[in-house]
């Protein structure tokens, strides 16, 4: 008797109507996730959707829908339904049609399994490196290896639209091997299961700050970012890189993205109010308030996405089997139809 409810559940789940419902429900939920902005802080939803709707969204995790336990449970239910249908089918006649259909359905489980593997064991990190800078991958949780950015380069079209971003990388002592390779968008470095992608870039400025008490500090500040000089007084330094300053016109405009006439606009900000600013060339310095700032130099930095993930190979195997199964399945059906 105890087995009966379980049997009933498996029978229901193995039926085609449940499979169709599951497909449509997953589709509807996925669509819903594109209509609600994902991954914002709970306050955002309270402000934009009002108290009640905002609360519903956060309580049901509709703001992190694709990671919500109940969405993952739906995907698990889909896998179960596929498996039960597969078992049911295998009991019936065995033909090319059934076999290929089985492969294509089990391939979907493989794809979702690979995704689960990535979620559990995949590891990635964003690393920003200035030209000449070096880091140890072990610091970011990967196998030991020394990663160096030898050079970063941007190619432009004549209208200054970016054509390609590329980084010349050295990866030394990674699992007993050395790599020296130029990566670009669409061309990552592959070292075993480790992949390094070109993901962003920017300018990095080397600035020396000297406080009134004579204490000096050397900092590396990325373009359009800020550095806290004194938290207690809400005092911070902001810097904007101007690669090709137009000196023929008033205001601060760049003629091109190329460093032909490079300047750095530094601003001293207190309580979000600018209390002093100056335009510096490399080697120049300026006194703002109690601080003296010197621009020692500047260089590109390259934003690299480093990733180690074996789940993706399961996913790709799943893709291959899905497609192969599907092609055989429908070609076989076509041949049967023509023969009839």
């Amino acid at each position: 008797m105890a087995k009966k409810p379980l049997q009933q559940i498996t029978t229901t789940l193995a039926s085609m109507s449940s499979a169709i419902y599951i497909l449509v429900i997953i589709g509807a939920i996925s669509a819903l996730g594109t209509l609600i902005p994902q991954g914002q802080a709970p306050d955002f939803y309270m402000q934009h959707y009002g108290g009640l709707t905002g609360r519903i969204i956060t309580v049901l995790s509709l703001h992190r829908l694709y990671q919500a336990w109940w969405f993952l449970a739906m995907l698990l239910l889909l896998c179960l339904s596929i498996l039960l249908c597969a078992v049911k089918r295998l009991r019936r006649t065995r033909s090319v049609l059934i076999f290929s259909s089985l492969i294509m359905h089990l391939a979907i489980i493989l794809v979702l399994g690979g995704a689960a593997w990535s979620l559990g064991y995949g590891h990635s990190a964003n690393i920003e490196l200035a030209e000449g800078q070096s880091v140890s991958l072990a610091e970011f949780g990967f196998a030991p290896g020394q990663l160096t950015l030898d050079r970063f380069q941007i190619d432009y079209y004549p209208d200054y639209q970016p054509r390609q971003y590329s980084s010349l990388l050295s990866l030394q002592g990674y699992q007993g091997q050395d790599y020296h390779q130029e990566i670009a968008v669409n061309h990552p470095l592959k070292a075993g299961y480790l992949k390094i992608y070109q993901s962003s870039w920017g300018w990095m400025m080397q600035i020396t700050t000297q406080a009134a008490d004579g204490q000096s500090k050397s900092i590396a500040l990325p373009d359009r970012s800020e550095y806290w000089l004194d938290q207690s007084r809400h005092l911070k330094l902001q810097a904007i890189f101007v690669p090709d300053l137009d000196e023929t016109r008033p205001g601060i405009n760049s003629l091109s993205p190329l460093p032909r006439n490079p300047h750095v606009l530094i601003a001293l900000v207190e309580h979000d109010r600018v209390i002093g600013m100056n335009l510096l060339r490399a080697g120049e310095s300026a006194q703002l308030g109690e601080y003296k700032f010197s621009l020692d130099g500047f260089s590109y930095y390259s934003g690299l996405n480093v990733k180690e993930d074996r789940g993706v190979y399961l996913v790709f195997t799943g893709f291959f089997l899905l497609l192969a199964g599907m092609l055989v399945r429908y070609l076989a059906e076509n041949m049967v139809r023509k023969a009839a």
Partner: protein
Amino acid sequence: MENLFTDLVFILLLLLTAVNLFRLWTERDLSKISQLILWLTLAAIVAVIVVRTAAAGRVPFANLYEFALLFSCGILVFALWVRQGLDSSRLDLSVAVLLLIIIAISTTLPSELGPLMPALQSTWLHAHVATAVIAYGCFALAACLGVVALSRSQQTAPGLDEIENRIYRMVVLGFIFLTIVIITGAVWAEEVWGNWWSWDPKETWSLVTWLIYAAYLHARRSYGWKGRKSAWMVIIGFVIVMFTLFGVSILLPGLHSYL
């Protein structure tokens, strides 16, 4: 030059619509004339694409406007194929109206000739876009055939089984190609962003269409869903395809911001 051919496409489509509206009232056989206009429209769209390719010095695979051109071209090719042995003014009419809608939408899209941005510089681009043209072309024709099936007054009208068969074959072909579109997109995304799936709106909606057509195929196989139900399903499926293409780009920007 390009504008001249685009205008020509528009005029030919209006003509196609008029001829097929006339066919609804007359007994005269104007099928061959309708076919001729379809061929001429195809030639004009191919001309637009060729002129654009020559001017840009690259394949016209870079933005939504260019995809709309390729999509229209695909629909015409499939229409010429599907209408063989099926004398139906309703099919030609629905194709004409659909193409008018797509061309009208495309005129509102930015059509400047831009170079390919770094993320698009990949051989995957060609496979991804070409298969999308085929998949969406098939779904478009399945929906047009669905309109034909619905507009027949009697379920037992001669030829309805044949229409039903053609709908099924179009959906199967479209489904296989949509699977390839999604797979090439995923493999490419892994190569360019290091993430084969990121629930970007365009990705998600293409998955939604895949699920809808998967549901259709299962319903048809297991419950013999034919006739009006299946006709409605392929029409709804295609409305979602159109939303994935145009609606998502305009209303829900994401990683596919260029398309």
